C-alpha cells in the first residue's frame, strides 16, 4: 500500500506548501461531502422505513406523526411501531459502527472488531443467562449485558497484558474467550424451555422486532454521553493510527486514551447489544467502509457511526419488508459480512497473481 505522496521539488518550498494545503483542503471537502451524503442517505432510509410496510403512508403523514399530530391509523403504525424501530436502528447502528472503528484503530487490525474478539460474546452470555435463567428484561437486562461485556473486556485485557501492550496477543486471547462464552451461551440455551429459547434465539441474531421507545431509552442516554466522549478522544485516537510509539512521541497519553476508549466503547457496545441483540458484522464492516469513503488521512469515526446507522436501517428494510420471510436484521448484515469477506478474498488472491 503506497500512499501517493508526490515528491516536493527541492528548493521550491512555497509551491510544495501550496500543494500540501490544496490537498488538505480537498480532503477536508471530501470528508464533508461524505458526511453530508451519508446523512442524506440515513434520512432517506428513515423516511422509507416509516412510510413503507404493509400499509404505505405518504411522507407528509409521517412528518405529521413525528411532529405529534394525530393522523388516523398512521399515529399507531408509524408512531408506535415504525418510529421506535427506525430510531433504534439508527442509534444501535451508530454505536456498533463507531465502537467497531475505535477497536480496529486501537488494535491496528481491520478484522479485530469487538464481536470477533469476544466482547460481544461476553455480553451475549450475560444477556442470555438473564433472559433464560432469571427472566430479566428491560433495564436489568441492559445492566447485565453491560456488566458481561465490561468484565469480558477486562479479563481479556488483563490476560493479554504482559508488560507492554500486545495487540496480537489480545486479539488471539479474545477469540478464545469468545468461543468459550459462545459455548456457555449454547449450554444455557439448551437447558432453557421452548419459549425462552425462541426469544433468546431471535435476540441472538440481532433483531429490531418489538422495539419501543422505553426500550431504546437506555441506549439513547448512553449515546448522548458516549458519542461526545468518543469525539473528545478522537484526536489522540486518530494520532494512534500512526502507531503507539509515534503517538506517544507526539504527546498522546497512549495508555489513558486506550483505557478511556475501551471503557466508553464497551459500555456503548453492550448497551446497544442489550437493546437489539448482536447485529452481526456492523462493527466489523463500518470502519473499513468509512475509511475507504473519506480517503487516507482523515478521521473516520463520525463517518463510521453514520455508515453503521445507514447499514442497520437499510438491512432492516430489506430483512423485514423486502424478503419473502420476515428475517431479523442480523441475518442480512451477516450476509453483507459474507459478501465483504468474499470481496476481500478475491482482492487478496488477485494481488497474489499480479
Amino acid at each position: 500500500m503506497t500512499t501517493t505522496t508526490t515528491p516536493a521539488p527541492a528548493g521550491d518550498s512555497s509551491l510544495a506548501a501550496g500543494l500540501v494545503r490544496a490537498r488538505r483542503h480537498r480532503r477536508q471537502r471530501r470528508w464533508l461531502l461524505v458526511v453530508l451524503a451519508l446523512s442524506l442517505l440515513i434520512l432517506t432510509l428513515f423516511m422509507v422505513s416509516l412510510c413503507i410496510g404493509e400499509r404505505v403512508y405518504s411522507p407528509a403523514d409521517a412528518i405529521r406523526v413525528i411532529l405529534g399530530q394525530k393522523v388516523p391509523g398512521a399515529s399507531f403504525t408509524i408512531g408506535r411501531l415504525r418510529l421506535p424501530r427506525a430510531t433504534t436502528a439508527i442509534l444501535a447502528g451508530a454505536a456498533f459502527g463507531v465502537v467497531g472503528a475505535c477497536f480496529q484503530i486501537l488494535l491496528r487490525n481491520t478484522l479485530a472488531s469487538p464481536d470477533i474478539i469476544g466482547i460481544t460474546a461476553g455480553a451475549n452470555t450475560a444477556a442470555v443467562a438473564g433472559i433464560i435463567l432469571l427472566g430479566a428484561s428491560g433495564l436489568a437486562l441492559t445492566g447485565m449485558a453491560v456488566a458481561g461485556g465490561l468484565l469480558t473486556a477486562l479479563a481479556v485485557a488483563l490476560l493479554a497484558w504482559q508488560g507492554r501492550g500486545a495487540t496480537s496477543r489480545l486479539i488471539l486471547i479474545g477469540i478464545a474467550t469468545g468461543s468459550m462464552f459462545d459455548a456457555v451461551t449454547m449450554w444455557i440455551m439448551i437447558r432453557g424451555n421452548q419459549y425462552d429459547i425462541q426469544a433468546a434465539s431471535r435476540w441472538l441474531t440481532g433483531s429490531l422486532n418489538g422495539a419501543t421507545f422505553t426500550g431504546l431509552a437506555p441506549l439513547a442516554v448512553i449515546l448522548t454521553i458516549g458519542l461526545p466522549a468518543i469525539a473528545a478522544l478522537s484526536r489522540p485516537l486518530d494520532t494512534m493510527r500512526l502507531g503507539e510509539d509515534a503517538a506517544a512521541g507526539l504527546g498522546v497519553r497512549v495508555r489513558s486514551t486506550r483505557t478511556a476508549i475501551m471503557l466508553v466503547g464497551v459500555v456503548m457496545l453492550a448497551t446497544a447489544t442489550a437493546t437489539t441483540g448482536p447485529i452481526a458484522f456492523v462493527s466489523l464492516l463500518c470502519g473499513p467502509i468509512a475509511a475507504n469513503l473519506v480517503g487516507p488521512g482523515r478521521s473516520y469515526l463520525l463517518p463510521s457511526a453514520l455508515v453503521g446507522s445507514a447499514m442497520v436501517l437499510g438491512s432492516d428494510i430489506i430483512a423485514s419488508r423486502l424478503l419473502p420471510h420476515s428475517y431479523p436484521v442480523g441475518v442480512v448484515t451477516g450476509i453483507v459480512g459474507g459478501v465483504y469477506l468474499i470481496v476481500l478474498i478475491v482482492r487478496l488472491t488477485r494481488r497474489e497473481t499480479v
Partner: protein
Amino acid sequence: MTSAAEAARPGPTGSASRRPARLWGLAAVLAALIAACAASVAVGTRAVPLDQVWTALTDPSVHTFAAAAVRTRVPRTVLGLLVGAALAVSGALLQGVTRNPLADPGILGVNAGAAVFIVVGMAYIGLDSPGEYIWLAVLGAGLAAAAVWAIGSGGRGRPTPLRLALAGAVLAAVLTSVTQAVLLPRAELLQTFRFWEAGGIDGARFDQIAQVLPFFIAGAAMAAFSGRALNSLALGDELAAGLGLRVGLVRLLIAASAVLLAAASTALAGPIAFVGLIVPHAVRTIVGADYRWVLAWCVLVGPLLLLVADVVGRIITRPTEVQVGIVMAIIGAPVFIALVRGRRMGEL
C-alpha cells in the same frame, strides 16, 4: 531410520534415546484409554457397576435398565474414540501444514464450514443421515479451509497464527449468519440443530458410524504417511524442497486429509473445537517434535481427552448432561490462552 529431518535435530529429541520411553508411554496411554472407555460405558445419569457392565455387554439375554443404558453407551463410546482420534490427528496435521501452533479444525472454521453445508443439505435437499450429507460436509470443510488460508495469507506467503485465527473467527461468524438465515424460518429444524450444533457424541448409532467410516479410514490412511513429510516441512519450505519434497503438492494432500477427518467428525458429532489444538501440544511435550510419533500418540490421546470430557459432562450437571463440545470449549479456551501467553510477540 535416520531421516534428514531428525538428523537436523540434535540432542535428546533424536529417536534412539527416546524410543523406549515413547513406546512405554504409548502403552500407558493405551491403558488409560481403556479405563476411559470403561468409565464411558459405566458412568452417566444412571451409573452402572463394572460387573453389571460386563454382563450387559456379554450376555444379550439380560434386559435390565442398567443393561439398556450400557448398550446405548457403547456406540457413544465408539464414536468418541473415532472422533477424538480424528480431531486430534486433524489438528496435528493442520499445525504441521500451516506451521502454526494455534491451528485446530474448530478455530480455523473448518468444522463450521462442514456444519453449514450440512444444514443447507438438511433444509433444502432433505438429507437426514450422515451417510447422505457427508459429501456436503467434506465440500464445506474444504472450501472453508481454502478460504481461511486465502484470507489469512493475504496473498503474501505463509500466514501468521494471528491472521489465520482471525480469518477463522470471521469466517465462522459469517457462516453462523448463513445458518441462522436457513434455520430461522424452519422451527423444527432449529430444534434438532440446536443440539447438534453444540457438538456431542450422545445419540450415536452404529449404522450412522458405519456410513461415515470410509471417510475416517481414507483420512487416516493419508495421515499415516504424512509424518515424514511434516518433519521436512517443519524445517521450512526451502529446506523441505531441497530434501526433494514437492512442497505444494504434499501440503495440499496433508491439508486434504485433515479436512476429511474434520468433516467426518463434524458429520457425526457436530462441530467440536479445541481437541485438535490441545492434544498435539500435550503430546509434543512428551514425545518431542517428530511428527511420526506425534501422530501416533494423537490417535490414542485424542480419544482419551474426548471420552474423559464426555464423562465429565455427564457428571457435573446430573441428571442432565453437558455436551462434549461445550465441555471442550470450556477446557480448551484456557489452554489456548496459555499457549498464546507463552509465546513472544514475534511468533504470533
